[in-house]
């Protein structure tokens, strides 16, 4: 059994008296790759900062490498490195930025070779070394920031939306470099991203957060309100002029619904009317999840995106391609009010 890297129990974080994070239990093993998904404001960044040992939780139990947070040594803290969504580069050259972490660790030998090597991992050649921080595009700056972490070969690499605001090529190179970190020195990866397909590809498991709580052990399709109450006692959300989602009304005034991607189905023909809620959409993208031997198909329905997890057999049966028209269906009982 793999050694525990993190153990969080009844952990809370609060700002200005308002609790923004409440994690009942979360255990992450050494060498694991864990994805964190959820809408903006769900507490992903707060959780990542706590996991990066950058800010202490307000309450609860937090163990890193089986050591309570207050006893974690400075050298152990240096095993973890966080990459922010919007990187900050020191007002220096690219070389000095990448070499900074090595220098503060007292490394003096082989710095140039290591800096050039880590820059190559993110697709930047050694000519970039002399560039100043203000001479880089957003994608290049993010890659330099990632290289500054990779050169340290951290045991735990934490990435907060690393590809959210970069160009497609930079996003690809970042994903490749992150995969290399795992391959080369077995780094544990903790990644928050809205790119569910990437999370599915890289991570053994995905934790879905909503309003500071873990609401699903895996990805989730979140449908926000407003929901309109109907005469038959049910509620509906209108997606377009002719498409709507109809669900049994919640017991209280809750306005957000989550549906597990494994509970959603795809078909080429419109499902028979009945208890099933069906929506017409278009296949946006397809990703294979090798570890689980499953496919994750993202379907666009009137501007809303839904993830559907399919078995290889079901996927092959439909032989789907991006931009194919499909019908997405689920039973109302699979929708859970949050």
């Amino acid at each position, binding site marked *: 059994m793999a050694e525990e890297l993190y153990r969080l129990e009844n952990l809370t974080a609060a700002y200005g008296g308002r609790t923004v994070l409440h994690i009942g239990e979360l255990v992450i093993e050494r060498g694991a790759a864990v994805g964190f998904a959820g809408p903006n404001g769900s507490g992903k960044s707060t959780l990542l900062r706590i996991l990066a040992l950058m800010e202490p939780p307000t309450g609860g139990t937090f163990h890193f490498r089986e050591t309570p947070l207050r006893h974690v040594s400075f050298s152990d803290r240096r095993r973890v*490195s*966080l990459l*922010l969504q*919007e990187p900050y580069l020191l007002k220096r050259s690219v070389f000095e930025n990448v070499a900074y972490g090595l220098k503060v660790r007292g490394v003096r030998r082989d710095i140039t070779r290591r800096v050039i090597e880590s820059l190559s991992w993110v697709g930047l050649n050694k000519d970039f070394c002399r560039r100043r921080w203000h001479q880089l595009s957003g994608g290049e700056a993010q890659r330099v920031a990632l290289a500054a972490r990779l050169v*340290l070969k951290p045991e735990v690499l934490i990435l907060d939306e690393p590809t959210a605001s970069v160009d497609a090529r930079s996003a690809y190179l970042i994903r490749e470099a992150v995969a290399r970190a795992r391959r080369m020195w077995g780094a544990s990866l903790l990644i928050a991203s809205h790119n569910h397909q990437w999370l599915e590809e890289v991570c053994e498991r995905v934790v879905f957060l909503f309003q500071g709580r873990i609401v699903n052990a895996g990805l989730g399709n979140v449908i926000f309100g407003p929901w309109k109450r109907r005469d038959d006692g049910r509620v509906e959300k209108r997606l377009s002029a002719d498409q709507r989602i109809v669900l049994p009304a919640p017991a209280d005034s809750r306005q957000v619904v989550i549906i597990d991607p494994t509970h959603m189905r795809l078909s080429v023909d419109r499902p028979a009317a009945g208890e099933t809620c069906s929506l017409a959409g278009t296949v946006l993208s397809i990703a294979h999840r090798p570890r689980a031997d499953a496919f994750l198909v993202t379907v666009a329905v009137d501007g809303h995106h839904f993830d559907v997890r399919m078995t290889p057999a079901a996927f092959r049966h439909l032989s789907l391609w991006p931009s194919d028209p499909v019908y997405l269906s689920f039973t109302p009982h699979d929708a859970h009010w949050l």
Partner: protein
Amino acid sequence: MDFLLDGFLQAFTLLWRHDPAVFSAIGTTVRVSTASVLLSLLLGIPAGFVLGYADFPGKRGLRTLVDTLLSLPTVFIGLLVYAFVSRRGPLGELGLLFTLPAIVIGQTILALPVITALTAAAVEALDRRLRPTLTALGAGGRQILLTTVREAHFGILTAAVTAYGRVMTEVGISMMVGGNIKWHTRTITTAIALETGKGEFATGIALGLVLLAIALGVNFSLSLLKRRWQA
């Protein structure tokens, strides 16, 4: 207006001929101003860093106090230092009154709030992502301080130049605790005050021009440095 024109002509002559009295005042001014600014930087940069970086109870009150001290009248500082270093004062035995160290003490008190307040402002104005970035890269307390100061170096350099301008142009402290002793503690500003009182405009104008030239030189160097760092 002829006396002013004559004053300017005579001033250039004094400077051209390296008038010993004029150059003694210039030398004294540069020595005490440089010493007091260096001392203020030594004390003010760590103080400003703490004030701008750390969160602690009473921070807002302390910040208000430091900001208030920015407008401390030089004659009041002169009076305070005089009271301490005069023979009856607690530091009277050191015999500092009417010496250059006494002026340096007074000018350090004058420059310290400038360095502290402007350093704190420069540190506060730094990007909020700097601290998590340094922590993520494994920097410890001392390394965070040094890197933060380096990141804020434009602001700190501006603070140093501002403080230098303030101490170089003050009269009250130099006059009260320096005593305006010729060849010894006479600075540019006390000399201007004295020579103007005597109706000797030429020397006053010459010294005033030197002050302007020093200010111009310092600011030009700062601008060059900024351009070089940004390139």
